[in-house]
């Protein structure tokens, strides 16, 4: 009998639903048999215990309905398989070299088309109400992870500086520390690494500034002390170790566009129908799977929430 594969698999359907339900049962079971009070705490315990780097713990973190119920990728993979070219172009290099990144003192300058430009110390940003957001992360290199980020919505920060009507785009400038970043000696990219979003993309509730993962502050290789996370776009759009946020009128030129505009567009939404010249985007490999058995989902499965941002746009032209 021929086995027919449905043409569009929803992300929630990729792992069979009974699996999730059993997972919930397990959580309930633990909750029932436990004297642990707050539901959030129980959920955190129900997750497989992870050996972390033991960094500073983040307290009073709320759970979010915007989190996926997919099982998070192991901490060791999240923190040892990184694209952070300032520390080398091999995936394992950032975990080794990023120890040298100087993350304190750290200020994030927010400026441009805003009524109240301001420089924030990262300690102040850590005091904002934090949420855990378990998001899928899809790299342009056709692999993906599920990461329990901790952070706050970008629009919260925006409110504090009051963007003007001229603010049509947001530019994110990341750290450039030649003394601690061995990778910037090579002209691999035009340093510092710059990324950008359209203002409505930046203000979308899914767009967060992350300050932690797995309950702790960010390891340096994951973009400490503060980074962008835009879950429906390829990973490179989510700039790490941000030092400057500029609200601007014109579309910023991103580092990858400057390097290779034919391969990396400004939007770079996850899209199985727009192939990258080096990688087919039809399927993806969930780390640490051997086989790339998952079909890529448009907007990385966040289409329900973000597709309306792009209505009327030809996403094959504006990739």
């Amino acid at each position, binding site marked *: 009998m021929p086995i027919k594969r449905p043409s569009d698999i929803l992300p929630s359907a990729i792992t069979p639903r009974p699996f999730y339900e059993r997972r919930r049962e397990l959580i309930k079971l633990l909750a029932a048999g436990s004297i642990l009070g707050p539901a959030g705490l129980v959920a955190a315990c129900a997750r497989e215990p992870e050996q972390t780097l033991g960094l500073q713990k983040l307290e009073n973190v709320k759970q979010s309905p915007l989190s996926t119920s997919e099982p998070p990728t192991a901490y*060791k*993979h999240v923190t*040892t*398989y990184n694209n952070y*070219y300032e520390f080398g*172009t091999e*995936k*394992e290099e950032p975990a080794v070299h990023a120890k040298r990144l100087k993350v304190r003192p750290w200020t994030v300058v927010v400026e441009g088309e805003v009524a109240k430009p301001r420089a924030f110390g990262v300690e102040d940003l850590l005091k904002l109400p934090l949420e855990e957001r378990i998001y899928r992360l899809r790299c342009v290199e*056709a*692999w993906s992870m599920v990461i329990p980020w901790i952070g706050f919505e970008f629009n919260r920060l925006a409110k504090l500086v009051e963007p003007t009507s001229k603010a049509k785009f947001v530019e994110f400038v990341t750290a450039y520390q030649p003394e601690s970043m061995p990778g910037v000696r*090579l002209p*691999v*990219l035009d340093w510092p690494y710059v990324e950008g979003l359209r203002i409505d993309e930046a203000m979308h509730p899914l767009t967060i500034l992350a300050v932690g993962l797995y309950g702790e502050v960010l390891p340096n290789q994951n973009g400490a002390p503060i980074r962008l996370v835009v879950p429906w776009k390829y990973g490179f759009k989510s700039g790490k170790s941000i030092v400057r946020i500029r609200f601007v009128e014109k579309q910023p030129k991103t580092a990858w566009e400057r*390097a290779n505009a034919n391969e990396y567009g400004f939007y770079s939404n996850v899209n199985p129908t727009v*192939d990258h*010249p*080096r990688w*087919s985007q*039809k*399927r993806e*490999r969930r*780390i*640490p*799977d*051997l*086989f*790339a*058995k998952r079909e890529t989902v448009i907007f990385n499965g966040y289409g329900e929430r973000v597709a309306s941002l792009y209505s009327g746009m030809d996403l094959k032209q504006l990739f």
Partner: protein
Amino acid sequence: MLLSPKTVSTLKAVIFLAALVPLGRLAAGASFFPDWLGANPAEFITRSTGDWTLRFLLLTLAVTPLRKLVGWHWLLRFRRMLGLYAFFYGVVHLSSYVAFDHVFDVMEILPDIVKRPFITVGFTALVLLIPLAITSTDNMVRRLGAKRWLALHRLVYAIAPLGVLHFWWMVKRDITEPAIYAVILTALLGYRAAVKMKERRRSRPAPGGALPQPRANA
């Protein structure tokens, strides 16, 4: 230096086994020690087998210059095995791409080979290696005749550059590693070109000498 038949067969066994070590490490990592292959084992396997394909190709091409420059003529005894290992790792490399990246979906793989220049050149290089592997036996050398066999095996002068180009075009930004392979390959092929030029110059008459004579081997 002349090696005794016994030394040759011992050395052959040693090289044969040593050349299997990279594969053994990948197989052990994939089956028992996931930490060896890191977060993306498929990428590790594909990259590693690709690296070894290029390394064996370069080793094969290093035999002639080493014989002529250092006088290690005995190296010739192992060249076939090195070449066959290049083919072997190339086949494993392609297989891991077919299996892990595309889950054997032929309708996805064929357009991928045509569409992506770096895959096109890599695939071409491996296909061109097939006739060389097939005609690597003593029997085939005899059947083809030395002259035709040599002519066929000059294909490697196209295959190796295609292989390095494949790596170069695959890399996103940092071309350090493919550049190292390219430098070594240029030296190995450049040596041959230099020898050829020298020979040609020698066969040409000295300026002001007699009229050009028909070349003996023309």
